[in-house]
């Protein structure tokens, strides 16, 4: 069927890490019909997982009753994801730089950084009613944050 590939899928999941796999399964299935190389989908998946992790952990405090709302909108040109929690928000500009020498050996603080690297654009939106909504966008085929896996030197 040569219809345009354009899909919007919404998912609502409880705040348990196992549920990340459900969203990953939907992403994989959604991308499967597109002529994307596997690596591109892989990196988007990592970014999405980081967003889900933060929503579940920092936003919803891992309360399985508290839902994370996910929206995946995909067409031939790219992907537009939002992940929303019911937490009390935070100040993204205050997040420490994981590349600062003092932070390099910290065990945390790389999630948002990876999201930015693996997507073209990420935006935070804090509703009046509380909660954090992060939007992740990426054009397919765009160079974006290509990851070069050269052997280290």
């Amino acid at each position, binding site marked *: 069927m040569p219809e345009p590939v354009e899909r919007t899928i919404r998912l609502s999941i409880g705040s348990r890490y196992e549920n990340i796999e459900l969203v990953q399964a939907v992403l994989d299935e959604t991308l499967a019909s597109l002529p994307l190389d596997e690596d591109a989908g892989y990196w988007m998946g990592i970014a999405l997982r980081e967003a889900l992790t933060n929503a579940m952990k920092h936003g919803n405090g891992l309360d399985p009753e508290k839902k994370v709302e996910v929206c995946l909108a995909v067409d031939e040109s790219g992907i537009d994801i939002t992940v929303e929690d019911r937490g009390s928000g935070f100040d993204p500009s205050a997040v420490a730089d994981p590349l600062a020498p003092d932070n390099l050996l910290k*065990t*945390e603080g790389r999630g948002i950084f990876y999201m930015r690297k693996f997507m073209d654009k990420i935006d935070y939106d804090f509703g009046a009613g509380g909660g954090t909504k992060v939007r992740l966008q990426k054009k397919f085929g765009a160079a974006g944050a290509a990851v070069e896996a050269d052997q280290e030197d």
Partner: protein
Amino acid sequence: MKIDKRQRDGATILDLQGRITIGEGDVALREAVQAAVADGAVNILLNMGRVRSIDSSGVGELVAAYTTVTNRGGKLRLFSLPGRVLGVLQITQLVTVLDILEDEDEAVASLA
């Protein structure tokens, strides 16, 4: 994640298999490294060859393992990194900090 432990030339090698991601492999990795250290391991080599995926949580555990082992005067080294795993470490400039070797022979030799 599945983790097998073996010894070679005085080093403890942990063969990791699966995903080092939140709620799953991250905890398993931490426990395996802690158990090895408790068993007296000084130098630990992590065989990453069959790690399918890693997220920031898994990266955090690698850093924690590095610190744990180094603080006790030992060495923690990684070898056989798949491109995707290496990519994630490069982006956060951890390749400059963690000791990453091409393969097992090189990793074992690096401890000599």
